[in-house]
């Protein structure tokens, strides 16, 4: 360190008179600028005091914001005005010295890295190889607790729900759904008994028409599902096939289900096929029937519900 400082030529520090134009304040009327800064800072102080009073007296959010905001704004404006209008206006200059090294210095450090390293690793290839293998092994096993401990493997969990043969339809409160619960145009979110509120089981039950047991079933434009409805009721998975949002909006006039997230629209009477938007697949349909006056599932869903994933066939 001492060598460096003796070798370095000490440049004379520049000295300037206070009346040098570079030292003049930016403002043409410094007195007025100072007056503005004084007023701003006094407002700032009052604002801060006002915040303190507001806090103790009322804790009213808007007044706290106004007092503290005006306080900081006043102080900030005052300091900025001081710096901008009352300090030396310059212009001042700073030389920019190239910070890159000479070609020789670059060559020297490159040589130091490659030659020293080359000699050490070249002579002890075994040690180098073992250390590389060891580091790799550490990296791999460190990933086990870091990643694998985080959660279970998916297994079949994305393929199944808790809907089974004869699962009873219940509301989110766990109340069984009676055949007279919905009028035409009504919708209800239902779950299998014992799983109320469960995310993958959420199912939307709609009543399209008021049909009796002897009436022909709802005519859904989806082949093979004519007996999946009961008394004008139809049930679909409520989980959007796009990104899993609940398909919570029912447009009764057009008999469509709408997902509020990205506006996919499903045609209820055509087996909930997506008519519009980014959803790629129909909502899976839950086959239902009436048992002792209450609605139950004929069977679980015949396909995975919700958005697509790689393992889905």
């Amino acid at each position: 360190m001492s060598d460096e400082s003796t070798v370095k030529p000490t440049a004379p520090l520049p000295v300037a008179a206070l009346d040098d134009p570079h030292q003049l304040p930016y403002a043409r009327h410094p007195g007025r600028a100072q007056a503005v800064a004084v007023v701003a800072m006094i407002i700032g102080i009052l604002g801060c005091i006002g915040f303190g009073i507001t806090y103790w007296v009322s804790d009213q959010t808007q007044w706290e914001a106004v007092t503290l905001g005006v306080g900081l704004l006043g102080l900030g404006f005052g300091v900025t005005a001081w710096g901008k209008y009352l300090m030396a206006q310059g212009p001042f200059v700073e030389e920019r010295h190239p910070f890159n090294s000479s070609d020789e210095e670059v060559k020297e450090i490159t040589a130091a890295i490659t030659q020293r390293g080359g000699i050490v690793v070249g002579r002890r290839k075994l040690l180098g190889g073992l250390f590389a293998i060891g580091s790799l092994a550490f990296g791999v096993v460190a990933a086990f607790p870091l990643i694998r401990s985080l959660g279970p493997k998916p297994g079949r969990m994305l393929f199944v729900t808790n809907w089974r043969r004869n699962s009873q339809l219940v509301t989110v409160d766990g109340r069984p759904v009676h055949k007279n619960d919905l009028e035409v145009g009504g919708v209800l979110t239902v779950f299998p008994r014992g799983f109320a509120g469960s995310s993958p089981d959420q199912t939307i039950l709609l009543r399209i028409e008021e049909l009796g047991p002897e009436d022909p079933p709802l005519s859904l434009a989806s082949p093979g599902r004519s007996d999946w409805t009961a008394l004008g009721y139809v049930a679909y998975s409520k989980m959007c096939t796009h990104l899993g949002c609940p398909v919570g909006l029912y447009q009764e006039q057009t008999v469509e289900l709408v997902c509020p997230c990205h506006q996919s629209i499903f045609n209820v009477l055509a087996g909930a096929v997506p008519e519009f938007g980014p959803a790629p697949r129909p909502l899976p349909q839950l086959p239902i029937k009436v048992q002792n006056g209450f609605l139950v599932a004929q069977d679980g869903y015949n396909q995975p519900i919700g958005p697509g994933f790689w393992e889905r066939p």
Partner: protein
Amino acid sequence: MIDESVRWLDDRLGIAKGGRTLLDKIFPDHWSFMLGEIALYSFVVLIATGVFLSLYFVPSAHEVVYHGSYLPLRGQRVSEAYSSTVGLSFDVKSGLLIRQTHHWAADVFLGSIAVHMARIFFTGAFRKPRELNWIVGVTMLMLGIVNGFLGYSLPDDLVSGTGIRIAYSIIESVPLVGSYLGFFLFGGNYPGNGVIIPRFYILHVLILPVIIGGLIAVHLGLLVKQKHTQFPGKGKTEDNVVGTPMFPTFIAKTTGFMFMTSAVLLLLGGLAQINPIWQFGQYEPYQISYAVQPDWYMGWLDGALRIMPSWEWVGWGHTLPLEVFLPAVVFPGLTFGFFWGWPHIEKRFTKDLATHNLLDRPRDRPKRTAFGAAMLMFYFMLFAASSTDVMANFFDVSLNVVLWTFRVIVFVIPIITYFVTYQICNEMRAAEGIGKRKRAMVVSRSDTGAYSTVTAEPRPGDDAHELDAIPVPTYINLTPEELETGPGVRRVMR
């Protein structure tokens, strides 16, 4: 006192030599250099308000009965995360102000980063030797977006919970490993076993802020090492920096600016309601509200998801949800890859390998400027597309019309923007005296009725530009009488 402290520190750290250089560091005077400061001070506000919030927020999905002072929620079963967020809003003094200021600060933080980045782009400040700092900045933008999303998700309210559900489905869409990633991150099938809020919390309050804070230190360290860029002008060359010194002028201005930035954020936080989670209610996976919208910085991704056609690919026993994977995984990946690589990509076209310390005027680089404007317009169109439903309602047209309009204009408008911007740049370059500050003309009428025009007096600072720049002086000679003439002494009397 100061003398003793400096000496004490200098004996131990040798601060005097480099310290003087630091005090004399020159900051160019241009308003656009202030945009990054907004981001920096928003980050300061985020840390300060965030520490306050962390004293009251409980990162837990555990179900409790709400007993706080917000009557409509009393007696409802909610998660501790939701209950504590409502609690710190209503039952902690100044809590609502701090919480809303935190949310506003996050929105302003990312907004100022975006505008700052545009300034760097259009003036060519990313060119050699500053490519590294560009990469650090883009990384902070990306981490800031991620951390914003994480923080927005923490209160466990209906709107943010829907956002987490969407994030899960996006992760699930990744080929081969998607469902594994989702299960590992959430601790099981959605909504997981209650670990997602504590996991998001530790990422949001510790890991990402530490990384962002470290990158800010690198960002500013590189700035000091490489020194500022500057616009061309009188006395400004590739080998110097002209402006005001760090101490005292810049310190005063930037301290004031920090206070003013904080003040604006506090005023927003107290007067402009943001994210009223007590109106949304607790998140339940089977419930949804009508207007589901993310914070503004996620809008471009939401828009891309909305206008993407439903191109699911199914084959060989597998499903590839391209309608999600392309807009929500591949597209942001390409976006940030492209941003990171931009300095290198531009070099491919310009073959310009030189070091640049003087900035470009955007009009002087019409192709880059036009391309940047087109890119901004592209992302803005995607952002606008995240409100297709609102537009359909507002303009009373069908969703179908809005959707197809966006599918077309998201590509067409950027192309138009390119050519229009290119033309504007070229016309500006051809015009005389453009970009120079014009002196006002004062027209006066004499008592005989004759009109005369004179140039107005220079505005404060105008005459400073006509001075030659000098190194930052010391003030050893305090009065002109004591001043001795000699080498390195400038003496100008007025």
